[in-house]
């Protein structure tokens, strides 16, 4: 199994006629994802290499049965686009857009919480989600992922996610799903959300978690792991050497005073029983070690298909 998406997920791409949406939307389709529609207001009736384009998300849902959305529109229109997806009944929305104002993100979170609790947002400013061999929504390069599990990956950083996928795939260790939650201050899906889904997924046997400085998402994840999780977790946290008060590329990656430091996050994760790596390569090696140690046991208890 996978989390959030699977081989039946039908995706509508918002901004399919723009450069980002077209490039990644077509890549996602080439990977095997069911990209069923595009939406660009005013361009309804056109198509992008055979993918029909509609004026509204509601039309894409009605005509093509889209149940997931890929939002690849510029920052000033992104918040409205996400809410439009939710209003059209889309259950899972991936938003890769970077530089959305924080107030807009907070407003989107409030709208989803109050009016559309059935919609899950992944991102903004995230690489998306890939369930190898089944579905890829976002900007992850599909060829570095390996189908079959048993590892689930959740990460705040894009390139470090690719690095993690690559390290595991090269050792022949596959992934059930790889989730990029993004580096913004108000992520739609948090570490805890993804960990919960992995814990509930019988095919995911171990989880790799990649955090970074800023906020307290990693500390909350540590609490959840300590209290609720049975599966092994290997983690890496970037930004041990980050200076205070400077945003390290991501809007959410900032150390303010003693808050949000990598050191505090690493200590919280260690105390929750998480295996913490010094760098992304070591995280890959440690995860391969966990898989080799337990794979016999896991095979003996393979869940019924």
């Amino acid at each position, binding site marked *: 199994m996978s989390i959030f998406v699977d081989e039946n997920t039908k995706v509508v791409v918002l901004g399919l006629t723009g450069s980002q949406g077209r490039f990644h939307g077509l890549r996602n389709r080439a990977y095997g994802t069911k990209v069923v529609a595009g939406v660009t207001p005013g361009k309804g009736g056109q198509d992008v290499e055979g993918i029909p384009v509609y004026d509204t998300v509601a039309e894409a849902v009605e005509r093509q049965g889209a149940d997931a959305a890929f939002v690849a529109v510029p920052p000033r229109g992104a918040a409205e686009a996400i809410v439009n997806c939710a209003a059209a009944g889309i259950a899972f929305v991936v938003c890769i857009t970077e530089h959305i104002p*924080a107030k807009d993100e907070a407003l989107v979170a409030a709208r989803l919480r109050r009016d559309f609790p059935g919609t899950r947002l992944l991102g903004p400013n995230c690489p998306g989600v890939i369930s190898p061999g089944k579905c890829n929504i976002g900007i992850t390069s599909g*060829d570095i992922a390996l189908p079959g599990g048993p590892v689930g990956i959740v*990460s705040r950083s894009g390139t470090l996610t690719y690095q993690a996928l*690559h390290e595991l795939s090269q050792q022949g260790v596959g992934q059930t799903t790889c989730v990029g939650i993004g580096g913004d201050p108000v992520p739609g899906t948090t570490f805890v959300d993804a960990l919960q889904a992995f814990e509930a997924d019988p095919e995911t046997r171990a989880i790799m978690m*990649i955090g*970074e400085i800023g906020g307290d998402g990693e500390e909350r994840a540590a609490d959840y792991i300590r209290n609720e999780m049975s599966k092994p977790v290997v983690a890496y946290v970037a930004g041990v050497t980050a200076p205070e008060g400077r945003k*390290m*590329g991501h809007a959410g990656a900032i150390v303010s005073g003693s808050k949000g430091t990598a050191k505090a996050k690493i200590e919280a994760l260690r105390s929750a029983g998480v295996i913490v790596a010094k760098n992304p390569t070591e995280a890959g090696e440690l995860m391969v070690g966990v898989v080799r140690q337990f794979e016999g046991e896991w095979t003996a208890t393979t869940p019924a298909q």
Partner: protein
Amino acid sequence: MDLVEYQGKQYFARYGIPISAGRAADTVDEAVAAAEEVGYPVVVKAQVQVGGRGKAGGVKLAADAAEARQHASDILGLDIKGHIVRRLWIEHATDIEKEYYASFTLDRAAKLHLAMVSARGGIDIEQVADTEPEAIARLHIDPLDGLGLPAARQLASDAGLDPEALDQAAAVLVDLYRCYVEGDADLVEINPLVLTTDGRVHALDAKVTLDDDAAFRHPEWSELEQIGDVDPREQLAKEKGLQYIGLVGSVGIIANGAGLAMSTLDVVNQVGGTAANFLDIGGGANADIMANALEVINTDPNVSVILVNIFGGIVRCDEVAQGILTALERVDLASPIVLRLDGTNSVEARRMLDERRSEQIIPELTMIGAAIRAVEIAGGQS
């Protein structure tokens, strides 16, 4: 973007928050003229992006022109924790009865706005939070609900503000929330918010951090001057549209993706080196961007080696390699490049670089290997 005090106050004033009459001054003569205009006694305040100005001698009271001249002359040019004072704010002095605290920021975990109000103003609020957490009243605000006067008054009352200050404080809180939301600030903080001896509530200090991502709907922000010294490397990087942060080490860093860049800094540190910068070239690692990145790092005299760490996903490593080779033709580099390329098309990329055999490029297969090599080179030259 962080505003200095007077910019923050002027930003507050747009939203109707009461502030003292004041004027900015860059010279001693301007300071005296400003003092004459706002009326004695005045407070002469250093405008720098750092706390603890008062203790450092950056805030002084002047009763007349002679004192204003003396203080302005003392404070201009003063070094406050590494920040040289180049601008002053001269404001009419306030007779303070009580000092409070008020702020709005985002509570990321709750995904709600958070108001904090305290009757213990005038000191570091983190200290209050540590020693007397109950002295800070907190209120989560759903952006769909906003903040109305009754809730604001209740919050001020919960914080223990004096009864005679409640109505005015509530009005300030409502305006401050509007400044925070409509003004697209990541943080607005008044410390202290004062009650004067004649019963008025107003902002005696201002801390405002604007959300750079919202600049597109605030054309007025372009008029805000950057106060204080700007790192020339960061200035150049900004002009070239790069995500760059200057640091003090000897290993120049270029990586694609913020996480990988941060991680590269960490790994350099783990193997005994120090990074000269953080530089994320993002997803479009083409020749032009690579050349710009190398140019910026090349201006840093502390750099003795450049570590380029690229993981190809959508970005193909052969394109990156081509970019570096093209960049080398454009930029006359003072330092060698240790290059780690992995991911999509990395084999082709390495072959291309082998064929060109540039002595300035030292290839490494892994991130750790590259960091060790770079630090060796940096150590050997310093």
